[in-house]
């Protein structure tokens, strides 16, 4: 099984086939890191296809699932921390907001790009974002989602609290969600706003490059 096959199966979201393909490639002597890199590259393609409207949410989800299954097989063969080598990202949907699909897509794409995700879930109070960042001093990015105009103030409060933290200089703050705009992101002092999950992953990589 070639490394190209693994790449192709991830792009096509063949979650049931990827584990065996990765195992076979390993058995044939493929380097584990090279296999991880090819899956990350596959998810780059998936992200770009999604951004361009060539694929839809379900296709992106099954590709992310396929990669996750592949990584499970790879993990014992990788050095510790290799799968989250780009650093930690804290992510959550703000207090009062139960939307999770957008946040989850961003989390999947960022994880697939090589980050370790600390997913706080939905309806996350400001204090939880702050404590998660403080408990993980190596966090590189805090990503905050809001899907309602009524929860934009909660996003503003969350970003304000992060901006006031003594460790602010060590992290980047990313925001997103249907009602969010670049103008709003600038106003509340976020470092980045992106319109979709693929762009979020791309921007996250740029931050740690």
């Amino acid at each position, binding site marked *: 099984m070639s490394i190209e096959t693994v790449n192709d199966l991830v792009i096509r979201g063949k979650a049931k086939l990827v584990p065996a393909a990765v195992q076979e490639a390993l058995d044939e002597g493929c380097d584990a890191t090279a296999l991880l890199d090819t899956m990350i590259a596959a998810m780059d393609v998936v992200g770009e296809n999604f951004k361009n409207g060539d694929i839809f949410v379900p296709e992106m989800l099954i590709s992310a699932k396929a990669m996750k299954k592949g990584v499970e097989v790879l993990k014992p063969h990788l050095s510790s921390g290799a799968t989250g080598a780009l650093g930690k990202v804290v992510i959550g949907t703000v207090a009062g907001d139960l939307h999770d699909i957008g946040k*989850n897509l961003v989390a999947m794409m960022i994880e697939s790009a090589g980050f370790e995700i600390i997913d706080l879930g939905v309806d996350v109070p400001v204090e939880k974002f702050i404590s998660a960042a403080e408990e993980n001093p190596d966090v590189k990015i805090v990503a905050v989602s809001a899907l309602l105009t009524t929860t934009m103030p909660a996003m503003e409060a969350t970003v304000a609290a992060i901006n006031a933290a003594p460790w602010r200089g060590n992290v980047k703050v990313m925001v997103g969600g249907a*009602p969010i705009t670049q103008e709003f992101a600038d106003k509340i002092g976020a470092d980045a706003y992106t319109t979709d999950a693929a762009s979020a992953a791309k921007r996250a990589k740029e931050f740690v490059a």
Partner: protein
Amino acid sequence: MLTAKENMREVIRGGNPDRFVNQYEAIALLFHPYLMTQPLLQKGMENVVNGWGVTQSFPTNAPGAFPVHTPDKIVVKDIEEWKKYVKAPSLKFPQELWDAAKAMYDAVDGTKAYKASFIAPGIFEQCHYLCSIEEALMNYMEYPDEMHDLIKYLTDWELELAEGICSHLHPDAIFHHDDWGSEQNSFLRPSIFEDFFLEPYQQIYRYYKDHGVEFIIHHSDSYCANILPTMVEMGIDVWQGCMKSNDVPELIKKYGGKIAFMGEIDNKQVDFDGWTQDDCTKAAVEAMERCGNKYFIPCITQGGPGSLYAGTYKGIWDAIDRYNCEKFGLKQEDIEAARLPMNIMF
């Protein structure tokens, strides 16, 4: 001067409307025994389980109740075993309940507004209420046979509901929720959407049309331009919730006469902390001038009269009235006399 209802009919059919329809002014949204017997979540209520076993919460600052999908609360634990988990609630209701519902329909002046049965959630939404949205979306790709079977089960239930509604309540419109996309795209690839949902919705909407319903109004506040041909084939007469991202003026040119559009005023344009009447007026006037009054109804995109922030819906309402008076030489009192009083649902 036409009543609000007559005017809406002219708009939908591309006839001779004498003004813009003002949002939901010509649609009286009415419940039926199924909704009347389900837990009615109020703001702030948490973890309430409905007849399908779906747990919902209603955060205080959200527009409506949301399904809760922590692993312990997902109804369908395994899509291959969905029959084990999904049990449709009974639609057998005592006559008194139908009578109570019918009294609400009878109380509406049917010359001024359509008596529209309110149906929610739709089949697509019910699938992700039951499975969680991510699992449901992946299931369309990975377990298509099981999803077809689940959708058939939900469709049969909806047809039974339709039978009860039509035989007891005699609505002349249906207001049916089912959100099919985000602001930027449909959730499903159009071919997949068609494969799963065209036939079920054709069956349901055809049933209503065959039993006295004049118009099917379908709510999806999202991008749906790419699935619009399928929506037309389903038998939808009015798409409520069409967001600006769809390029509605272009859609009217292309599909006017096959389907009408109700929306173009996105909540985020007007429904935010610190909104002003100017925001409402600007959004409403822009929508009317961009789209015209044939096959188009200017309306907030959310799926019922009201808004998240108090006053926004009325702000748009007042702006449309003013525009109608100025543009068509109408008097406010005549407009009021031709419609029901403004009703805020949310």
